[in-house]
């Protein structure tokens, strides 16, 4: 009835709410990172601010907000300012197409239908990949604009690294596209609802995709752009205060985006975990997905499942960081070009052969 409201204002509010939730998640992801790594290193971790240290992220945010925001004299001011914004915006934008519930969990607020995803575009996966490829500009430009040698080296490293790992990142999902026949993230999960989790069909692609994702995020063991033992702090050496916080946000939101992508593409997104008992107890999936209670219950359950699965992927990130030492630069390039890309190409050929074999058996 009010097209402007329905197509502009409501999605805008939806996006703002989604962004705020993401920011809150990032705040507590940093807390989780410190606690988990402390646990793995037999330390206690932050425990002073609030009960069990739970208010630590709030204190960190306040500290970053009121810290002096320095700009080096020799820096290129315009680009120095826009670089962190590019980095953060591109990762937040990637979240627009990630579903946290099925179309059947569409709820109505004040008469406006709110779907559990901001957009279901035909080219969903490609959209995420292309938007995240914009994020590298934030790092490269930030490194250059600082006009200082360590940030420049960090920026150049990240440019080379992210371009190299974008290729296997994209190639790893081609198998998914071949099996499901669609690039829309919602339809991919619906395909998994009818058949099975793509993890069982594409186990090798999951591994490739996640490794490439870790490298895309510049996370350990691929955190060469900010290798503190060589480059001080890499591309964000000259950044402080809230501009630094923006780079920080970009990195953690990108972690959440990659985790959510892995969950959506391979682990059934909002679908419940039934441990393979769905066939024994046909009512179990409906029970666990909240299908007994209308759209609001389904939305809650869907969000819960997505949250739990994303949580496990994020834990994996932290686990990897606590376990593996950083790669050397030539090792990084060798893994990217000489293992990841040929392996993902081989997996595409294998997937194609598998699809042909299944078709031959069925006909």
């Amino acid at each position, binding site marked *: 009835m009010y097209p402007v409201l329905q197509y502009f204002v409501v999605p805008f509010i939806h996006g703002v709410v989604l962004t705020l939730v993401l920011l809150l998640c990032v705040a507590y992801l940093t807390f989780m990172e410190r606690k988990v790594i402390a646990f793995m290193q037999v330390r206690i971790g932050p425990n002073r601010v609030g009960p069990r240290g739970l208010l630590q992220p709030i204190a960190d945010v306040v500290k970053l907000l009121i810290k002096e925001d320095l700009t080096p004299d020799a820096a*290129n001011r*315009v*680009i120095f300012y*826009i670089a962190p914004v590019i980095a953060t915006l591109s990762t937040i934008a990637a979240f627009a197409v990630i579903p946290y519930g099925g179309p059947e969990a569409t709820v109505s607020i004040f008469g406006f239908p709110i779907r559990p995803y901001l957009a279901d*575009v*035909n*080219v969903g996966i*490609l*959209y995420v*990949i*292309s*938007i995240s*490829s*914009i994020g*590298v*500009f934030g790092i*490269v*430009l930030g490194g*250059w*604009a600082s006009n200082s040698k360590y940030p*420049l080296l960090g*920026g*150049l490293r990240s*440019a*080379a690294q*992210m*371009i190299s790992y*974008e290729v296997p990142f*994209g190639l790893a999902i081609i198998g998914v596209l071949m099996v499901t026949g669609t*690039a829309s993230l919602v339809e991919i999960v619906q395909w998994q609802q009818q058949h099975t989790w793509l993890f069982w069909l594409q186990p090798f692609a999951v591994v490739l995709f996640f490794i490439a994702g870790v490298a895309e995020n510049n996370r350990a063991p691929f955190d060469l752009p900010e290798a503190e033992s060589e480059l001080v702090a890499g591309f964000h050496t000259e950044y402080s205060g809230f501009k630094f916080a923006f780079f920080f946000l970009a990195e953690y939101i990108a972690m959440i985006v990659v985790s959510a992508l892995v969950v959506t593409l391979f682990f059934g997104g909002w679908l419940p975990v039934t441990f393979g008992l769905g066939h024994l107890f046909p009512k179990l999936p409906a029970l666990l997905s909240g299908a007994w209670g209308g759209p609001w219950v389904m939305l809650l359950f869907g969000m819960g499942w997505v949250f739990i699965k994303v949580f496990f992927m994020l834990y994996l990130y932290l686990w990897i960081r606590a376990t593996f030492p950083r790669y050397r*630069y*030539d090792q990084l*390039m060798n893994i990217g070009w000489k293992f990841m890309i040929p392996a993902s190409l081989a997996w595409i050929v294998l997937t194609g052969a598998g699809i042909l074999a299944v078709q031959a058996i069925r006909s």
Partner: protein
Amino acid sequence: MEFVVFAIFAALAVLAAAGVVVARNPVYCAVALLVSLLSVAALFLVLWAEFIAVVQIMVYAGGVMVLFLFVIMLVDLEQRGFDLGAGRIGPRPSAFERGLWAVAALAFGALVLSLMVRSLDLPLPGADRAATMLQGPYAADGRGLGNTEWIGMLLYTDWLVPFELASVLLLVAIIGAVVLARRDQADAPAGKGAA
């Protein structure tokens, strides 16, 4: 509504393209080019060509522009004798030369414009064929003109030969780049070469 979106992004694309030419700092040129490419991607979206829009961002903005920036950042132009402050390379051209360039630019502009106007009348090649081949949700209304399935089908049937030729061209370019890089390395054994 479509017109408003089109007007915003078309203006942005043209202004940014002008910025690429006018800006003196090569990094500003690169950023302006990036804005221009992204605006063109938005224009593709207005035309319902989602696939082309995404590919535009992925290939040009995410791939080509990053490499441009990479090179710009590595090559210190001021050290190589280019006077960036003057905004030009070499001596100022004479009035006759400049007139000649203006005529050439106008003629080229007119040629492109006439081709664009002419192409408005032509039917989209293979559109009817794709409509019959495609049995997806977009087959009936033709809304998904830029859809992945549609492009894929046309690319691998009607346009297979040009498609394969283009890939051979890219392969030649890759091999050429490798050959050039290797010769560079052989000439200067002291330098380790690019990583």
